[in-house]
């Protein structure tokens, strides 16, 4: 049974994650993140920002598209179901991945908190959007 994908919800989810990223790594934890990663304004300016942000957006859109499948597998239909799906995906895959990276590369736990926190809030948000925004025709 192939899931019905609401592409508008997928794009809106990716935009939401992108916007949250700007707030999270800007206003909220921008200073702390730069301090912990050793990233400086000068180093950041060397990178091609179009490629960096464009690449990030494409990967968020891919994530949202795949998440729409998992929302369907989990039969999540509402805000609660979407948030639960987002939580399990975060705990099982993203959080574990980030914890293992922190352990083996002996990186800062504060940095883990910032990065994993961002992933948690964005996956909850995307799960809620994808599960509760159903196409009217999807029920037919």
């Amino acid at each position: 049974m192939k899931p019905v994908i609401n592409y508008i919800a997928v794009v809106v989810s990716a935009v939401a994650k992108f916007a949250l990223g700007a707030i999270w790594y800007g206003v909220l934890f921008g200073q702390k993140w730069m301090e912990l990663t050793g990233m400086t304004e000068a180093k950041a300016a060397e990178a091609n920002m179009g490629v960096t942000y464009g690449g990030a957006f494409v990967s968020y859109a891919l994530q949202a598209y795949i998440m729409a499948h998992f929302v369907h597998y989990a039969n999540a239909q509402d805000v609660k179901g979407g948030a639960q799906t987002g939580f399990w995906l975060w705990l099982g895959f993203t959080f574990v991945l980030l914890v293992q990276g922190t352990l083996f590369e002996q990186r800062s736990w504060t940095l883990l908190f910032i990065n994993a926190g961002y992933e948690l809030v964005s996956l909850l948000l995307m799960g809620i959007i994808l599960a509760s925004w159903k196409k009217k025709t999807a029920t037919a």
Partner: protein
Amino acid sequence: MGEMHINYLAVLAAAISNMAIGFLWYGPLFGKKWMALSGYTEEQVKSMNPGPLYGQSFVAALLTYYILARFMAGTTTMMQGIETAGLVWLGFVTTVQFTASLFSTRPKALYFLDTGYQLASFIAAGAIIALWR
């Protein structure tokens, strides 16, 4: 997700396969490459306390494959298992590693090395959990 049948032995086997692939991947296969790219030296690696590190990592892997098994409740064939595990890798593992790599100054080759390990582990786990019901 409601009540479902989970074979805990298959979850355990998947976590063991993850550790085994890790020993090979970051050992004989790409150990030298990984050290060169990540900037670790033999001395630094030897000074790590491997017991707790592998213990914690194993517990984390058990959690991952338990949740994978829950999402795989509807799969019946090995190919479906690999497909679901591959989708998890694509949606929630490699995308996260990719954006982390974009926003860091670390070598891009390190991203390919790390994400290749994850892909191999997820394919193995998907196959094990699908076949061993």
